[in-house]
Structures are given as structure tokens and as C-alpha cells.
């Protein structure tokens, strides 16, 4: 394609993509009635800008502009934008999905009094997220990373009178902060070692990372030297930021709780975009990771993927299943980063964004419609519980169809986008394990199992919700016609249909069964997978087994021909209680911190302030002693003297008798005394 715009114009377009959502945020708070319009128009502008940027920059060149911001000491921090292949494709993805979710939200949030806030927060989120992918240095990236977390906080707690929602947003913010402390320490290490935070200078071609090396236990850069272990620490620190944001073990428990927010928000922020920011960060800084860190990343990713998939098997809340599914799929991406197939990670990030967003929006429609029934008939039931659904395929065919497509994509069945990207990750994991051998074969084994679990749990949802009979009328003993439920209007259906279209593999590869024909994957990975055994066998055996599992799920949940009774087993309990992480964190960590805080306060009152009081008491005691001494000894002396003088006076006064004879005798005595003295001396 020809270059229509010059670099400068492209820069202005990028700025436009940033400022549009920001202005929408401001204006939505001022002109409350027009909030939805501002949101949609602004994100539309961002989308158009993103398309232009994508067409001009994808696989062609990098756009990097920066301006001086802070310059003190050794630290120069600029603000700027860095648009390379990774950022432009992320930009396109984010703005496209955000636009669809905005449109969907118009209907979803229609009857809420504070909906202007909803759209304002959504615009704030879009602004921050667009900035995250465009930021050209780690400091700015960190700043917007936090801002994304903040807007997520606002949106999770959008219904702030709901106790669960405000507990959830607090938890999300604090858990994210734990990771962010790591991110911040990582930034400190990079500044100290390289004196810059510019991503291109640090990690680009001919970068500072390449020119630094480890020798004799020291990590040497052109500017400074540190002990070797700081290289690993730096990697772990940045990774901890990604762990929190992408809800990986052990900081994953905030994401299921975050489902207390509006479903549209869950789909945009907690499924498609924000949670993927962690993976995005890992991709941005991947040259930093050494082998220790990479293996840890792979391990965490694998464990998270497996754990979350097992939890998703037994949850009854439809959003909880999807939340754990998201955690699991993010684990796949993190695993891909760990085995150094960044192309697979970004590819899966993109395909996952579409189908997971679709799953959430589909679930949102179901919840929304059930909520209407609940309000209309003033019934009391949990509209998110799958036990209240069933058979909805016939009542709401469009929703059922798109949900089914998305489920197929999540399972990675052929012709879907998930097939390609999951295939890429699995093949890479097999090759990686093959290269290392031994215990590393656990990775492909576990990830295959996880992949099958994924298929089973999502089709469990599909069959429970859309097949069989509608269970709600039975529960309340009402006629089916009375509790009428139907597909929503176009505000909601158009976005889900668009998303469903993007679940097909042809958009990502001209031959949807062959990974090597994928333009996205090869945008990031120029070398071909070696046409080995894995490449042929892996998709085959995964999918055959998957189909069998789908059939099984059909029998269990749709036809209900097989009854399973696991409820009493330990693994059911483990799964249903989400591996007891919440209880563990509540009981151990929270209580310990709070107890420690109480202890600190006791220490402050009793010991520190106690010392102050003690010293003041001692001084008071001393002053009492001094007072006693003063009264009795010092003043005693003074009084004694006074007393003596007084007595003397009385005695002398006694002499003033007024009798002439007495005076004469005294005079005689004095005269005699004087004379005696005179003679003696």
C-alpha cells in the first residue's frame, strides 16, 4: 500500500487516537446526557486512526517520537510514542473491541441513572489503554499501566452501593499494586543500570540489553555494573507486574471477584484488553529475560493455565467460568512467552480477545434478559447461575449461535481462530520440551490436558445454558410463555455478530488449517516452524480428543443421559472452592498483616510513647525530689537563718527594757569586754 500520510501526519493521527477518548472522558462528566455519544464517537475516531496507522506501519517501519519531560541527574525521562508492529496491531485490536463494547453498552446500561459515569470511565480506560500500547518508555508505560488499573477499579465498583463490588475493586487494586511494586523496582534497576527507560534504546535493535553482558558473576552495561543476580531480579520484578495484571498465579484471585462489575466491562477490560496488558509488557521487554526467568515464566503460565481450567470445570456462575477461562488462557500466553515463542503469544492474545469478549457479551445478553424477567415478575433468583438457564438456543437463536462459535474457537476446533493460535503455542511447547528433554516433557503433557479441560468446561457451559430445557419456569412453577425471553435488539446483536465473524480462522490465515499461512503469526516470527512430527500430530490428537469430550459434555449436560456425582470428592471441592486461595489469603496473609499492624500500633503506644512518658515521669519524680530538697534543705537553711535572725532579734529586743540601770550595766559590760580584748591582743 502506498504511503498517503507523512510521518508527521501519522504522528498527529496517533495523538488524535489518544486525545479523542480523553476528551470524551472530560466531556462525558460535563455534558452528562451526551456521554454515550461522546464515548462511541471518540473510540470510533481512535479506531479509524488505528486503521490508518496499521496500514501505514505494519511490517513497514517504526514511528518513534519523544519529547523531553523530566531531566534531572542521570535520569532523562521523555514522553513519547513508539509505534512498531506490536503496538499497531494491539492498537487496532483494542480500539475495535472497545468500539463494539461501547455500542453494546448503550443497551446494557440504558436504565442506569449514573450511566454518564460509566461511559466516562470507559473512555478513561480506553485513553489509558491506548497510551499503554503506545508508550515509548517504561516510566510512561508504568504510569498508564496504573491508570488502566485505576479505571478498572472505578468500573468494577461502578455499582458502588453493592458491598461485593466494592470489596472486589479494592482487592483488584491492592493485588495489582503488589505486582506494580515489582514493576517499579524493575524500573529502578533499569535506570540504575542503563540510565534510560526508553524501550527502543533498551530493547530495540542494537540495544543496550544486547550490549550488556554477564561476566564473572557481574552484570555489566555500558554505564554501570551490578552483581549478576540483579539481571534475574529485574526479570522477576517486571514479571510480577505482569502476573498481577494478567491474573496469574499467585495473584489471580482478583479477576473472578472483578466479575461483580458490569458484564460489558468484564468483556472489555477483564477479558480482552487490560488483562492482556501483562502479556504485552512481557513481549515488550522480552530481551531482558534470562533463562532462569524464562523457565519461571513458563512454569507460572503452565500452572495457572492448568489450575484455572480445573476450577472452571465446576463453577455454576457463568461469569466465574469465563473468568477462570480467561485466567487459564492468559496462562497459555504467558507460557508461550516463557518458551520464547512471542509470535504465538501475541497471536493467541489477539484471537483470544475476540472470542473471549464474545463469550462475555453473549453471557451478558443472557444475564441481561434474565434480569429483565427478574424485575418484571419480581422473582428472586441469581441471574448468573447456570442452573436457572437451559434451552436458550431456541429462545434466543442469535445469541446461542454466536456463543457456540466462540466456544468452538476457545476449544481450538479447526477453521476457528483459536485453532491456529493454540496450535502455535502447543507446537512451540512440544518443540521446547523436545529440546530440553527430561522433566520438561511435563509441560506439553499438562498443557494438552489443560487444552482438553478447556473444551470440556466451555461446552459444559454451552450445553447447560443453551441446550436442554429452560429450567427457570420449572423452578418457579410458571408457564414457559409467561417468562418470555428473546434475543436483544440491534445495539447488542450487531457487536456480537461482528465478533463472531472474527472468530473464524480465515481472517488470520488464508489457509485456516495451516499456521504457516498466518499473517499475524509471521508478522512476528519470520522463521517457519520446522515441518516436524509435532506440527502434524499435535493439532490432530488434541482435536480428536476434544471432539470426544464435546460429545461427552453433550451427553452429560444437554441430554442428561449420564449423571455424574462428584460433589463429595476432594477434587470437586478443591475445584469448586477455587483451590482455597481466597480462604488462604484471607486467613493467613490479610490477618497476619492486620495483626502485625495492631502489634505495631501497640508498640508505638506502649514502647515508643511509653519511653517518652517514662522519661517525663522520671523528670517529674526528680522534680519532686528537688522540690523536697528545696523545701527542706535549701529553704530549710534559708528559713533557719531567718529563724536565727528572728530569735536574735527577739533576744536583742529583750534588751530594750527601757530601764536606765540595765542600759548602764550593758554599757559597762561592753566597755569591760572591749578593754579585756584590747589588753589581751
Amino acid at each position, binding site marked *: 500500500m502506498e504511503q498517503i500520510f507523512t510521518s508527521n501526519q501519522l504522528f498527529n493521527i496517533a495523538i488524535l487516537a489518544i486525545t479523542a477518548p480523553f476528551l470524551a472522558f472530560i466531556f462525558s462528566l460535563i455534558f452528562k446526557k451526551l456521554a454515550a455519544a461522546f464515548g462511541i464517537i471518540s473510540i470510533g475516531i481512535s479506531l479509524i486512526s488505528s486503521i490508518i496507522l496499521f496500514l501505514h506501519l505494519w511490517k513497514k517501519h517504526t514511528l518513534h517520537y519523544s519529547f523531553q*519531560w*523530566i*531531566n*534531572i*541527574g*542521570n*535520569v532523562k525521562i521523555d514522553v513519547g510514542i513508539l509505534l512498531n508492529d506490536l503496538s499497531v496491531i494491539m492498537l487496532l485490536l483494542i480500539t475495535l473491541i472497545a468500539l463494539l463494547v461501547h455500542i453494546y453498552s448503550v443497551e446494557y446500561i440504558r436504565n442506569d441513572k449514573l450511566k454518564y459515569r460509566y461511559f466516562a470511565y470507559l473512555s478513561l480506560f480506553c485513553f489509558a489503554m491506548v497510551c499503554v500500547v503506545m508508550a515509548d518508555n517504561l*516510566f510512561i508505560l*508504568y*504510569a*498508564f499501566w*496504573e*491508570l488502566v488499573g*485505576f479505571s478498572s477499579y472505578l468500573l468494577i*465498583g461502578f455499582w*458502588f*452501593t*453493592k*458491598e461485593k463490588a*466494592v*470489596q472486589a*475493586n*479494592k482487592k483488584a*487494586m*491492592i493485588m495489582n*499494586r*503488589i505486582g506494580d*511494586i515489582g514493576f*517499579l*523496582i524493575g*524500573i*529502578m*534497576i533499569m*535506570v*540504575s*543500570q542503563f540510565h534510560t527507560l526508553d524501550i527502543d534504546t533498551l530493547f530495540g535493535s542494537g540495544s543496550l540489553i544486547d550490549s550488556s553482558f554477564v561476566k564473572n558473576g557481574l552484570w555489566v552495561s555500558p554505564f*554501570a*555494573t*551490578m552483581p549478576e543476580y*540483579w539481571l534475574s531480579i529485574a526479570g522477576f520484578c517486571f514479571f510480577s507486574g505482569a502476573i498481577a495484571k494478567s491474573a496469574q498465579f499467585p495473584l489471580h484471585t482478583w479477576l473472578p471477584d472483578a466479575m461483580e462489575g458490569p458484564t460489558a466491562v468484564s468483556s472489555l477490560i477483564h477479558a480482552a484488553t487490560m488483562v492482556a496488558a501483562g502479556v504485552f509488557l512481557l513481549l515488550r521487554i522480552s530481551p531482558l529475560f534470562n533463562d532462569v526467568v524464562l523457565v519461571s515464566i513458563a512454569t507460572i503460565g503452565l500452572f495457572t493455565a492448568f489450575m484455572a481450567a480445573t476450577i472452571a470445570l465446576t463453577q455454576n456462575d457463568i461469569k466465574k467460568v469465563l473468568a477462570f477461562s480467561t485466567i487459564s488462557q492468559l496462562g497459555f500466553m504467558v507460557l508461550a512467552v516463557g518458551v520464547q515463542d512471542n509470535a504465538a503469544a501475541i497471536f493467541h492474545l489477539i484471537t483470544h480477545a475476540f472470542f473471549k469478549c464474545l463469550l462475555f457479551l453473549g453471557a451478558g445478553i443472557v444475564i441481561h434478559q434474565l434480569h429483565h424477567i427478574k424485575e418484571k415478575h419480581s422473582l428472586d433468583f441469581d441471574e448468573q447461575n447456570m442452573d436457572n438457564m437451559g434451552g436458550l438456543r431456541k429462545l434466543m437463536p442469535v445469541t446461542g449461535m454466536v456463543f457456540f462459535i466462540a466456544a468452538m474457537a476457545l476449544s481450538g476446533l479447526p477453521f476457528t481462530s483459536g485453532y491456529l493460535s493454540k496450535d502455535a503455542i502447543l507446537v512451540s511447547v512440544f518443540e521446547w520440551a523436545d529440546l530440553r528433554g527430561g522433566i520438561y516433557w511435563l509441560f506439553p503433557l499438562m498443557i494438552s490436558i489443560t487444552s482438553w479441560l478447556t473444551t470440556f468446561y466451555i461446552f459444559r457451559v454451552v450445553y447447560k445454558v443453551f441446550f436442554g430445557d429452560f429450567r427457570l419456569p420449572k423452578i418457579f412453577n410458571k408457564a414457559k410463555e409467561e417468562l418470555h425471553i428473546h434475543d436483544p435488539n440491534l445495539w447488542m446483536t450487531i457487536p456480537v455478530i461482528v465478533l463472531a465473524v472474527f472468530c473464524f480462522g480465515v481472517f488470520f490465515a488464508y489457509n485456516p488449517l495451516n499456521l504457516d499461512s498466518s499473517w499475524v503469526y509471521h508478522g512476528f516470527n519470520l522463521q517457519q516452524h520446522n515441518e516436524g512430527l509435532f506440527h502434524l500430530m499435535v493439532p490432530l490428537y488434541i482435536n480428536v480428543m476434544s471432539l470426544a469430550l464435546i460429545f461427552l459434555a453433550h451427553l452429560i449436560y444437554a441430554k442428561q443421559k449420564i449423571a455424574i456425582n462428584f460433589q463429595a470428592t476432594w477434587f470437586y471441592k478443591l475445584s469448586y472452592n477455587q483451590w482455597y486461595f481466597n480462604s488462604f489469603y484471607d486467613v493467613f496473609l490479610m490477618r497476619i*498483616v*492486620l495483626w*502485625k*499492624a*495492631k502489634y*505495631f*500500633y501497640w508498640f*508505638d503506644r506502649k514502647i*515508643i*510513647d511509653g*519511653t*517518652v512518658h517514662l522519661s*517525663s515521669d522520671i523528670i517529674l519524680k526528680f522534680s519532686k525530689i528537688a522540690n523536697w530538697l528545696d523545701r527542706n534543705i535549701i529553704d530549710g537553711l534559708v528559713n533557719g537563718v531567718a529563724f536565727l535572725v528572728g530569735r536574735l532579734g527577739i533576744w536583742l529586743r529583750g534588751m530594750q527594757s527601757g530601764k536606765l540601770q540595765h542600759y548602764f550595766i550593758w554599757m559597762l559590760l561592753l566597755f569591760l569586754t572591749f578593754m579585756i580584748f584590747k589588753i589581751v591582743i
Partner: protein
Amino acid sequence: MGVLSILIFLPLVFGIIILLMPKSTSAYFKYLAVVVSLAQLIIASWLYYQFKTGVSFAGVNNLAQYQWVEKLDWIRLDVGSFGVLQIDYLLGVDGFSIGLIWLSALVMLIAVLSSWEIKTNLKGYFALFLLLDTAIIGVFCSLDLFLFYIFYELMLLPLYFLIGMWGGVRREYAAIKFFLYTLFGSIFMLLVIAGLYLSVTDPTTGNHTFNMVYAMDPANYSAGSIFSRLANAQILGFSARYVGFIIVFIAFAIKVPVFPFHTWLPDAHVEAPTPISIILAGILLKVGGYGIIRIAFGIFPDVAASLSWWVGLLGVISIIYGAMNALAQRDLKRLIAYSSVSHMGFVLLGIASLTAEGLNGAMMQMISHGFLSVMLFFIVGVIYNRVHDRDIYNFRGLANQMPKFTGFVMIAFFASLGLPGFSAFIAEAFTLIGAFSSQAINGLLPRWMAMVAAFGILLGSAYLLWTLQRMFFGTLRLKKEEWKAQLKDLNWREIITLTPLAALALILGVMPSLAFNVMSSSVNQFLMLFK
């Protein structure tokens, strides 16, 4: 009469005028005070705007580079063999003080605006208030140690009465505690100042001098004097300069306050009326940080560098310790008081790092904490004035009841917990970056200190988010039914007070160079003392 003198003595003059006015006019005192502090803020803003930056206006140890210098011979007493007792009325401003002067002027205006709650003995209140104003600006302007000390002690007197007479239930205890604590530090400091006087000579007149700028130059110390670097004199078997540094450091550490000298602060804050809490948190604590930089570190750089590990450690302990204590509180005001201990710990850590990043970060943290703590205490005041209660557990779901107020609370809380876009984030990030790079640049602080301090940010978000969730979100539930009528949303005066603070925290967060530009050359010059 120079502009700094006007800035200092304007409030004093009006304080005297208020004393002379008849009691029947007492309703107008607060408006008069607003006018005075507004005038002061305008002058301070003009100074900030006119302040010249760059290497040739760095100041610190070069008197010629200070701006708006005023020098008058104040006391010249011929004391025979000791020469001439020389005390100067010496004022001047450099990059370290200009920001704090402007902050003081702003905080005083905010404090006046929140003095609407004061109902008793207005004449006494505003007279003392304006006296305090004079003393505070004087501290930041004076360059003569004797003059500095006078202003420094002059701050105590009005504060003692302001807490002791207009405070809460245990006001007398708090006032005496505050007074004695601070006096304890400063009396010993007076001895060091006397020692410095006997050691330092004015290079132009040859007399002994209290000039603190001259005291920063080792060449001005007369040979064999007690604080001379070469003489290596001893006090009770310890090196005299070490003793001098430690005494001065403790005097200011009490003001900051640094663990373990902080226990006056929660009591004083809790018992003081809102405007005095605002002044305490907004400015008084900064006097401590300013003193540590200019006097403790500036005059004893050699000792400071060798003890900076300990200073940094105290900073880290204050950060974590303050935050942990804040977590345990259920009195909102006490919680914020402890959070001040935590936030001021960053100042100490940044100073101890002796790097440009750390020092700039520390100065930024002082200014940023100035805005934010003022905002936080004002917020407590809003609730306390309405229902005379501030127990966190007695409130729930205020967001629906007071939406505007909740908006400001969220801004203040999130800015305090270091959300990017607000000044505290920049300040804390730079302090930490400075502390971390210290190992590579000058080898003073180990890297773990910065890493541990970073966890203070985490604890900060824990207690602030908990408070936010506990008090403001959820469904409305109050301890008493009648509170619902009393808890009205913000009025105009309160909005006008809070808005500029929020805006300033935001502006400095987005454009930190507004503050960094002013101080960075002074910081660089300051660091030359340690080379």
C-alpha cells in the same frame, strides 16, 4: 525594606491590627486574615514566577547566588577579647526555599479558609495565627542561624496556644507534649549553633558569624575551633562534628517526624483544630526536612555522608512503620497522621541517597505532601465539623449522601497512594530511583532499602483503599439517625478550598518540571558539598 521582609512581617502587622480592633468587629477578623494571606500568596507567587533558575542562581553555599538577599547589621556588640558579636538580619532565597515559601503561603490561605469552624475568642486566635504565619515564612527565608533560631522558636509559642486553647478533648496534654518534644530538640541545637558561631568567621569582616551560608564553606572555619574539620575536636570523647550533626539532625527529625521521635504527631494532629492540623502537616513537617537539608546536611556534609546509611534506615523504618500503624487505626485523623509519618519517610530516604534524583524527589515529596496532607486533613475536618465524630466504623456509604465530597476524597486518596498523574507518584518514584541508584553512584545506601521502601507504597494503598471502601461505598449506614441530615455535601467555601489543591497535585504530577526546574540547579550545587 525588601520583598522578603514584607512577606514575613505583613501578617505580624495585621496581627497587631487585629489585636487593636474592638471586639465588636470580631466577625470580620477572618476576612481580614483571608486578605492578608491572599496578599502573601500573591507576593509568593510573584517571587516564584520571578525566580531565576540556572547554575548561576544555585545558591546553597554561595551567598552571591541567593536572590532577594536582604542584609542588615542587627546586633554588633563589642565583647572584648572575643571580638565583635555579629548577628545579621540576613534573608535570601534559593531553589530549596522558594518552593517551600510558596507552599507555606498557600497552606496558610487554606488554613484561614478552614478557620471558619473556630467560634471562640476570635481575636486571640487570629492574632496568634498571624504570628505563626510570620514565624513560618521567616524560617524559610533566614540565612543567619541566630535569626533562623528565633523564627524557629517563635513558631512554637503560637502553636502551643492554638492547640492548647482551641483543640479537642485532650488538647492540653497534646500541646504540652508537642511543645516539650520540639523544645527538647531545639535547645541542644542552640548549643551547636553557639559552637558554630565560635568556629565560623565572616571572610569579609573577620568577625565570628552566625551566617549559615558561610558555615557551609570549610575555609571559613578558624583553625583549631571546635567544629573545624581539620582540628578534629572532641566532645565527651566523640568527634565534635559528629556530635553536632547528630544533635541538629535529631532536632529536625523530631519536626519531620522520623521514627522514633514521632509520637507527638498523632496526638498533636488529633487534638488540634482542623486549620492547625493543616498547618502542622502542610508546613511544620517541611521545616524539619528543610532543616535537615540545609543545616544538618549542608553544614556537616562530611558527617552526613558517613552517617547517611543510618539516615536512610530511619527513613525506611518510618515509611513502613508509619504505614503499618496507619493500618491499625480506626480514627480517620489518626490514620492520616500516621500516613504523614510514612510519607515523610520518603523525604528522609531521598535526602540520605545524596543523589540528584533522590534529593529532587525528596523536595518534590515535601511539596506534594504539602498539598495532599492539607487536603486530607481538610477532608477529615469536613466530616468532623458536621457530626463531631471521625471513627471510620461509624460511617458507611457516604458516596450517595455526599457525592462531591466523595469525588474530592477519591482524588486525595488516590493521589496520596501514588497514582500516576499526581505529584506524589513522581516524588516517590524519583526518591526510590535515587535511593536505588545510590549504590552505583556513591555507594551510600544499599539497594534493599529502596526495595523495602517500595512496599510502603503498597501498604499506603491498603489503608487508603480500605478506608475508602469502608466509609464511602456500600449502602448508607450511620451511627446516629440525625447524622443523615447533618452530613450535607460540600458548600462553596469548601469546594473553593479543595479545588486548587487537587489541581496543583495534578499539575505537578503531569508537569513535574515546574518544580524540578526551580530546584535542580540548587540540588546539583548542594551535591557538590559532598564531593
